[in-house]
């Protein structure tokens, strides 16, 4: 038996992928999923790469799967929205080499713009989904997911959570399986999603569902207790349920689609059934089909928003009320001292824009005091589209603020749309030469790969010009007055203007 080591959920998933014999790992940084690819970039000898966004990362992984080899693609929950297009149809086309899509959800939205539940996405795509409850299970289920993916020829989803991804617990490293042999085959009736194929492929996918439920039920386990109260707990929910003692029976769900017979059997004879699941009431809905004594989110007993955590059942099981959180001065994160974004926001505020559309990254912190410089923040890349929309209604001096990495992720298509439709907007690309918010990952603009090697390099200003933008300025934001004057001038000019305040992130500089 190998010695146990401490691994976070993210590290355990990455280690599991290595042990499963992957040939490729792809991702785009996003808390709480970032460290999966980072671990692989450091420890996996094969290819581990950042793509410019989750959609491309998944498409690359799908390509690897077609060669008969195994691939993992990891992302945060909202990243799956970006990758939804390849995800939905890859479910029809299926996988050859094992294909695992790891999605880390963020209940409580500790570092996210929403609390969406990836189990519903997996259900929507009709894909099997694992939900481990600790790091050791995360490693095991990652390996099991690759086996399942090849057995049923489907991509598999693994749902993590902030609390799983970022909790370290003991894991026993295992042997690393050799990678699959290269075996790329043409198979047009299966690999080409055209009308003449898709209905038949959809039927094949539907036919897999019942078999998946049966096969996956071995990952769901029951521990019997003496009480006539029972808990159905999903993934990490089982760890919370066990805090309440051995007297309660627990049905631990680690696999979707859930075998409903397991739920039916568990609830029969119980006086009260609690459902503990982070996110939406996915299991609770099922349980209510089989028992009238189900309590959870739908019944109004547990919060439908935010994180449940270990105390969610305390009022009912321990008669313990949550302590009122003391009113104390908040300590929000702020832009670092010396950060170039500070100078850029100072200059932007002084220029007097009418409305500023923001985006996702460190610079989102500019929404808060003392800058209060942003008027909206929606999702990756949305600053430019929203600015086009606002300006289209005749509003002058509309400014979009977006970071270099986010621009590459999904801002560039917005910029092309702006040029094409002759929008009158000023786009400020805050260039700190890093994906800083998630831990300073390199980007195509820095030309360094995930493994720290020299990659191809893309010019930001060159890309903007190639999109058809004729007015592209690059400026050091430290020259605040000069920058203010420039913004004022550009805001009054017609058409699409790009201003790039460029100052390397102070932490990248230190490296």
């Amino acid at each position, binding site marked *: 038996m190998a010695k146990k080591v401490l691994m976070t959920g993210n590290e355990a998933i990455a280690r599991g992928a290595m042990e499963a014999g992957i040939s490729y790992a792809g991702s785009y940084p996003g808390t709480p999923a970032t460290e999966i690819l980072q671990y692989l970039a450091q420890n996996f000898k094969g290819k581990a790469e950042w793509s410019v966004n989750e959609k491309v990362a998944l498409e690359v992984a799908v390509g690897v799967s077609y060669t008969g080899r195994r691939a993992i693609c990891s992302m945060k929950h909202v990243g799956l929205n970006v990758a939804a297009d390849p995800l939905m149809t890859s479910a029809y086309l299926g996988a050859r080499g094992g294909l695992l899509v790891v999605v880390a959800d963020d209940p409580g939205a500790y570092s996210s713009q929403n609390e969406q539940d990836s189990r519903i996405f997996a259900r929507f795509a009709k894909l099997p989904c694992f939900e481990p409850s600790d790091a050791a299970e995360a490693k095991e289920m990652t390996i099991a997911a690759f086996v399942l993916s090849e057995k049923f020829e489907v991509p598999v989803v693994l749902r993590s959570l902030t609390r799983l991804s970022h909790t370290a617990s003991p894991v026993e490293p295992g042997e690393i399986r050799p990678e699959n042999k290269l075996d790329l085959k043409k198979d047009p009736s299966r690999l080409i999603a055209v009308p003449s194929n898709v209905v038949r492929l959809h039927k094949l996918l539907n036919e897999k569902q019942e078999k998946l439920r049966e096969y996956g039920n071995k990952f769901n386990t029951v521990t019997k207790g003496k009480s006539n109260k029972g808990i159905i707990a999903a993934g990490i929910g089982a760890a919370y349920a066990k*805090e309440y003692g051995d007297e309660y029976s627990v049905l631990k769900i680690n696999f979707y689609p859930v075998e409903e017979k397991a739920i039916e059997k568990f609830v029969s004879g119980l006086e009260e059934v609690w459902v503990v699941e982070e996110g939406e009431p996915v299991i609770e809905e099922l349980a209510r089909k089989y028992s009238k004594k189900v309590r959870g989110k739908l019944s109004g007993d547990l919060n439908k928003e935010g994180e449940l955590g270990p105390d969610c059942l305390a009022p009912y099981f321990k008669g313990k009320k949550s302590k009122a959180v003391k009113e104390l001065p908040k300590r929000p*994160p702020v832009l670092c001292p010396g950060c170039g974004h500070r100078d850029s926001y100072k200059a932007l505020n002084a220029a007097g824009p009418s409305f500023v559309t923001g985006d996702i990254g460190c610079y989102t912190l500019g929404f808060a005091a003392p800058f209060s410089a942003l008027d909206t923040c929606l999702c990756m890349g949305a600053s430019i589209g929203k600015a086009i929309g606002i300006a289209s209604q005749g509003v002058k001096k509309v400014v979009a603020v977006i970071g270099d990495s986010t621009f590459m992720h999904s801002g560039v298509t917005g910029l092309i749309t702006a040029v094409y439709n002759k929008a009158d907007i000023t786009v400020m690309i805050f260039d700190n030469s890093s994906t800083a918010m998630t831990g300073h990952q390199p980007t195509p603009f820095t030309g360094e790969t995930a493994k720290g090697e020299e990659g191809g390099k893309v010019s930001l200003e060159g890309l903007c010009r190639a999109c058809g933008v004729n007015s592209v300025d690059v400026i050091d934001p430290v020259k605040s007055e000069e920058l203010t004057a420039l913004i004022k001038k550009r805001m009054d000019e017609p058409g699409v203007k790009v201003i790039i305040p460029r100052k390397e992130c102070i932490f990248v500089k230190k490296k």
Partner: protein
Amino acid sequence: MEKPINIILAGVGGQGIILAGNIIARAALESGFDVKANELHGMAQRGGSVLSHIRFGKIVHSPLIPEGEADILVSLEELESLRYERFLKPGGIVIMNTRKIVPSSISAEAYPSDIMSSMEKSGFKVEAVDALAAARNTGSVKIENIILLGLLAKHLPFKQETWEKVIRSSVPEKYLEMNLKAFGIL
């Protein structure tokens, strides 16, 4: 030990909470315990409030400590001790750095006063230390975290050589002597 030992680590981004949490968790594993160590990061370098839950024992289930069940709160900053006080069990121990870092959201005058005595009044056992001054004496302001770990160690069932082994493999060679001194080993 039936119930796990629960430790909350709190402070401000940049104070080395994540490293301190790692050291405790690894020392627990080395000592043969089950362990779960949760950290909330992503904002760590941006001056936000940072919190870490460390639990070890025969078996640990939840990665988060239920409210009112923490045995010890180690805090690198006064206001942050107060913020996470609700996790402490009645009569729990507070190891507090008497350092005040005024949040950007308030003026220095608005910083709560008498935090230590307020926590003592709530029935907690407060061990206060000026870790910043001690850190300066040891050679670097950046090792407040290790100074507090040295105090925490007195309450935990790990051998000195286990701590030493873990610290040795956690900090760069050139800072090792300074860290061992701060911890109280040298």
